[in-house]
C-alpha cells in the first residue's frame, strides 16, 4: 500500500495542484488571482517533470570530485537524470517571463479601468463601447489631418 502511494503520490499531487491552478485561471474573477493561478499551474508541471527525473538511490547530478574527474567511469545509477532539471530551468524562466508580462498587463488594465475584477472590467468596456456607439463618433485619433 505504502509502496503504491509512494509510486504515484507525486503524480497525484501534481494533478491536484494543476487542477487548483487551472480552476483559478479559468474561474477566478480577479486578474491577479488568475496570474497566481497561472504560477501554480506552471509549478505543477515542474513537479511533474522533476518527479519524472527522480531516481532512487541517486545523488544530485553533479559529478563528485571523488570519481569522474580522473576519468573513471561514472555510474549512471548514481546520479539523478539531469535532463528534466534543465528543461524545468527553462520552464521556470519562461514562467517568470510570462508573469512579468501578465503583471504589466494587469497594471495597464487597472490604470485604464480602475479595477482588477473581470466582471467590472467587462462592464466598463461595454459602457465605453455603447458610449462611442450612441454618439456615433468614430475614433478620430488616427484620422489623417
Amino acid at each position, binding site marked *: 500500500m505504502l509502496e503504491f502511494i509512494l509510486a504515484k503520490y507525486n503524480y497525484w499531487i501534481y494533478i*491536484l495542484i494543476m487542477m487548483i491552478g487551472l480552476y483559478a485561471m479559468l474561474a477566478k*474573477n480577479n486578474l491577479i488571482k488568475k496570474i497566481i493561478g497561472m504560477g501554480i499551474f506552471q509549478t505543477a508541471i515542474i*513537479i511533474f517533470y522533476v518527479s519524472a527525473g527522480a531516481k532512487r538511490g541517486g545523488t544530485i547530478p553533479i559529478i563528485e570530485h571523488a570519481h569522474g574527474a580522473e576519468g573513471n567511469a561514472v555510474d*549512471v545509477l548514481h546520479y539523478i537524470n539531469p535532463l528534466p532539471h534543465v528543461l524545468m530551468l527553462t520552464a521556470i524562466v519562461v514562467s517568470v517571463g510570462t508573469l512579468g*508580462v501578465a*503583471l504589466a498587463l494587469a*497594471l495597464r488594465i487597472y490604470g485604464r479601468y480602475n479595477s482588477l475584477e473581470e466582471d467590472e472590467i467587462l462592464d466598463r468596456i461595454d459602457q465605453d463601447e455603447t458610449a462611442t456607439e450612441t454618439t456615433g463618433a468614430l475614433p478620430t485619433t488616427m484620422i489623417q489631418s
Partner: protein
Amino acid sequence: MIWQIDLLILTLIVICGFCTIVVKDLLGAAVIFGAYSFLMCLLWTEMGAVDVAFTEASVGAGVSTVLFFAAVHRTTRHVKMKPSGRLMGKTIGLAAAGLMGCVLLYATTDFPSWADPNSPASTHVSPRYITGTIPDTSVPNMVTSVLADYRGFDTMFETAVILTAGLAVLIILGQTGNRSPLPISRLPQGPITQGYDDTIIRFITRIMTPFLQLFALYVIAHGHHSPGGGFQGGVILGATFILMSISYDLRMVTNRFNERTNLLLANTGLLIYSGIGALCLILGANFLDYSALAKILPGTTTITARSEAMLGVEIGVALAVMAIVILIYNNLVSNGTYENGL
C-alpha cells in the same frame, strides 16, 4: 528522494496552493504564494534537483513574489467578495479542471513508479549526459553542461524569453508619445526624495549588498562545479539591486541602471550568447559547437573549450537576466514612470 519529507512538503504545497486561491487579499495571496514557492524550492532539493531549486528560490520565490508585491502596490489589494455573473466561469473552470484531472489521473496508471531507476526517462537519453559530461565537456555539473552545451540552443532562447519579457513589459508599460531620441530617457532627475527613511533597513542593506553581489558573481562563476549559473547568479545580482531600490529609493538603482543601460546590458548579454554561437559558425562548425573555439582560445582543447565557452555563455545569460529583472521590477513598481518605487 527522501520520501517522508517529500510527502509532507507536497501536502504543505497543496495547502498553500489552495489557500493562495482562496484568500481574499491580494497581498496575502502574494505572500502565501511566496511561501508556496519557497516550499517548492525545498521540494526540488529534496528530489535532488538542486539547480532547479536554486532557480526556483531566486526566480520563482524571490523575484516573482517581489514582482507580485510591486503589482499589488501599483493596483489594489482588494478582492471583490461576490463577483457578479461568474457562475459560467466557475462551471467551466470546475469542468475543465475536473476533466483534466481525470485524464491525467488515467494516464498515471501507466507511469513508471516514482524514482524508479529503470524508468525510460532514466535509461534512454540521460545516461549519455551523466557519463558524457566529463569526457565531453569537462564540466562536473551535468545540469550546466546539458543546459549550456548539449541543449544550449534551448537555453539561448530561454534567455531570449526573458529578454522578450523585458521588452514586452517596457512596451506595455512605457509611456507613448515620447518623441525624444530614445524610448528611454524618462528617468526623473534630481535628489532622492522619498519620504520615509528607515535607518535600520538601509544600513543593513548597504552593508550586505556588496557581499550579496559577490555571492551572485560567485554563483555565476561556479556554475560548472556546483548548482547555480548564469540564471541564478543573474537573478541574485538583479535582486541585490532590487533590494537597494526597496530599502532606499528607486532612483538609487535607476541612477546606476537606467532603462537604456538595462536594455544595452540585456541585449549585450544575448549578443554574447548568440555571438559565441555565431563565432562557432564562422569558425566552420555548426552553430553553438563550442569545440570549434579551441582554434582561437589559447591553451584549450576541444573539450575545455566547451567548458570555457559555457562560462562565457553563462556570463551573457547573467548579464541579460540581471538587467531584465531590474528592468521589469522598475517598470512594474513605478507603473512605467520611474517616479517612485516600493
